[in-house]
């Protein structure tokens, strides 16, 4: 049995974030107090998650436990479930959130008016709380409610930077997300009707019975298809990803970092949970959803990179690259093996760490170039803001999958995972093609920022703040990746 303190951490982390969101509007706006408070709380939650991970992996306790929310046991009340994977994800989410906030501390001040900044903090806290709730929850309807919080908070975070473009992007994002959540809601209703439960393990048992007796196979397929489509829209799988570059490209740097690093991941992890915990991999295979996901993942890997190649705006380029990376994750999910899902989780973590860094670095570079976002305008910015330049380079190498960087580990595990599956040729070809395409747009970007520009001193403004946080971060990633695969394997 794990100790009482660690046992309460999942609940405590969600509630701490909620409470800090609730009291933030009451704080004075002076001294950027709200932002400091949210950073502190997110940092605290990060430490708590790390401790939970430590306890879960080292104490010889059972690897996961259920936490009933209230006085009533499993099928009657809500429940949280925490295991190593959940605690790793919450640790990564909190860390990425904290670093995105700290790394963009000054650009946030430039982009957002003070009174909006306070609300921005409320939204960030709510977003983190909803992400953690999505990570820990064991109940489908709770997941739906927190998906909605996530949606509203994410759209509001896009719109937090005032301007015509962000408003349009936020609306577009909102409409697409609402289509997604509508589909998810329909699917949850169907599943509730078929199984009579909302809790994941009870649903799983009921679905196994239904499949064994070959009852209601068609409604099951439809609900699976609907819930997958809904969440795929929200997590920007390729044909549904048209909203992403707008939303991520136009908002303030902190928002882009948070959105593309974390919000997408929350939805993807929900899909993985539904596949793995609600339906079970055999049922997914039986209902043919794995093939669909696999093909869409392949498509996203290629098309995301192709779109990214055509962009001139550096933030939009990185946003389209997110679409390609989401494709990698779905490729892993579509392999429909334990190894595939482990690789997908690993890529979620890697991408959640690197994408915020890329956005932060790109934001820092474009600030250094006088708030221009065109790729050619960034020429030589490395020499103005070395940390940001280094961050962009490291992130780019990692995205390309150069050995020694974090992206390599996840691409390697994806490759290894696809060895067992009959579709190995396709997945290997797509991995190779996508890596080459990644290189085709990331390498020129790195070269551009490294090229010495003789007018550098004239145009460029003062360097952006330190990005030192970013690098410490990265060295830990590979280590964590290994820990993670170890847990999935065991």
């Amino acid at each position, binding site marked *: 049995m794990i100790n*009482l303190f660690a*046992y*309460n951490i999942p*609940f405590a982390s969600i*509630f701490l974030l*909620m*409470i800090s*969101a*609730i*009291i933030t*509007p*009451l704080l004075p706006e002076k001294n950027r107090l709200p932002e400091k408070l949210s950073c502190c709380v997110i940092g605290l939650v990060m430490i708590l998650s790390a401790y939970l991970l430590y306890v879960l992996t080292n104490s010889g306790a059972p690897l996961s436990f259920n*936490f*009933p*929310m*209230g*006085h*009533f046991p499993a*099928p*009657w*009340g*809500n429940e949280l479930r925490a295991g190593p994977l959940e605690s790793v994800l919450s640790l990564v989410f909190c860390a990425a959130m904290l670093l995105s906030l700290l790394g963009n501390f000054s650009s946030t001040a430039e982009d957002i*008016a003070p*009174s*909006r900044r306070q*609300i921005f903090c*409320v*939204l960030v806290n*709510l977003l983190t*709380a*909803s992400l953690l*709730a999505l990570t820990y929850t064991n*109940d489908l*309807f*709770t997941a739906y*409610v*927190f998906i*909605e*919080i996530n949606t*509203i*908070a994410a*759209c*509001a975070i896009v*719109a*937090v930077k*005032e301007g*015509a473009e962000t408003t349009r992007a936020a609306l577009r994002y909102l409409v697409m997300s609402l289509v997604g959540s509508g589909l998810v809601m*329909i699917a949850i209703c*169907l599943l509730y*009707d*078929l*199984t*009579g*439960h909302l809790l994941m393990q009870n649903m799983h048992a*009921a679905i196994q019975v239904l499949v064994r007796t070959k009852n*209601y196979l*068609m*409604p099951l397929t*439809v*609900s699976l298809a609907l819930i997958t489509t809904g969440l795929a829209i929200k997590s920007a799988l390729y044909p549904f990803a048209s909203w992403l570059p707008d939303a991520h490209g136009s908002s303030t740097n902190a928002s882009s970092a948070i959105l593309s690093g974390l919000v997408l991941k929350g939805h993807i992890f929900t899909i993985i949970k539904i596949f793995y915990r609600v339906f079970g991999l055999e049922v997914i295979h039986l209902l043919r959803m794995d093939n669909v996901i696999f093909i869409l993942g392949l498509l996203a890997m290629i098309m995301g990179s192709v779109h990214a190649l055509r962009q001139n705006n550096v933030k939009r380029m990185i946003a389209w690259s997110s679409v390609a990376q989401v494709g990698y994750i779905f490729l892993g999910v579509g392999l429909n093996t334990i190894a595939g899902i482990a690789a997908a989780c690993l890529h979620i973590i890697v991408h959640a760490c690197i994408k915020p860094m890329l956005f932060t670095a790109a934001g820092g570079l474009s600030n250094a170039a006088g708030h221009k976002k065109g790729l050619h305008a960034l020429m030589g910015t490395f020499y103005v803001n070395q940390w940001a330049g280094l961050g962009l380079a490291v992130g780019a190498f990692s995205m390309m999958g150069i050995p020694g960087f974090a992206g390599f580990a996840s691409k390697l595990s994806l490759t290894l995972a696809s060895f067992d599956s009959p579709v190995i040729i396709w997945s290997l070809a797509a991995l190779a093609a996508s890596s080459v395409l990644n290189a085709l747009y990331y390498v020129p970007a790195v070269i551009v920022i490294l090229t010495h520009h003789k007018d550098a001193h004239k145009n460029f403004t003062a360097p952006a703040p330190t990005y030192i946080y970013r690098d410490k971060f990265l060295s830990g990633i590979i280590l964590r990746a290994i820990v993670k695969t170890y847990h999935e394997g065991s």
Partner: protein
Amino acid sequence: MNEEIKLIWQKFFNWVSGNGPRPENEVIPPEPPPDLPFTQKPKDKYTRFHEATLKERYNQWLEIHGLHIFSLIYSGLSVLTCIVIVCLLLATVAELPPFGDEKNPANNEVIRRYVEHGGHETGAQNIVAGLILDYRAFDTFGESAVLFTAAVSVLMILGVSRRNNIEESSPDLNESGQNFLERAPPVNFHEIRQDDSILRAVASLSIPAILLMGCVVVINGHLTPGGGFSGGAILSTALILCANAFGFERVHKFFNERTFIISSSTALMIYALSKGYSFFTGANHFHSIIPKGTIGNILSGGLILPLNICVGLIVAGTLYGFYALFSRGDI
């Protein structure tokens, strides 16, 4: 009779189209013609020209970029998708367990416990109230958080931006001529204020009744249908009516942005803390000190009554806040 309906329609129409009340033309309003709803209203020359050009420019733009076909395909595809979805879902529905049958999978041991033990486990007579505020309270907490998120976001989008813009008007927006609203003078109280004596008389009679009704619905949430959310919505209508009849300044005296934020944050905080206490004690198998009371009494249901009051406060404040923000961009 017909004339009266026309007159009422006219008033409503004027209100919606933003022309405000016209107490002086109680007899027969001269303009605009009553049958034309506001979207088809003949507009001033410039606007019509402007909208026409916008449409034209839009069509041209579609053609230039070769998007016309794309937009047609998009429309066709979405209709097709929806037909496919409807057919698929209809086929699914045909396979689902039959309607109203008691042997449906949903009527399982979970429901049995809710009904059979719900009474003494939660102390609430209304099973739904016990369900959402005790058994599945985490969902409901999430729901309040959704409302809070939306309130804060709408405040940010409509309220705060306006305040900032008036204080430190951003030059780049005004230069491009885009932001015509920001150049409009800020709305003052007098402009919206209604001098309708009938409305005032009716409002002063009905506002206490509505408030009472709202309180009854909130406080009896664990005994009868209703509860924090519906009661809060009723309470907010009393505030809205007050603002409409006596002007926003009256409401502003006791309910402004500061009180809005303080009241909803405090209520949500009480909600979170009390629910957190009950989650904590429940999960750790500690004894909870909250008495359940006897079913059917007003003081029963453990935490449900205070939680309903908190939710009612949040909802009333938030919905009035939405109203105020939408109608004048400030609370």
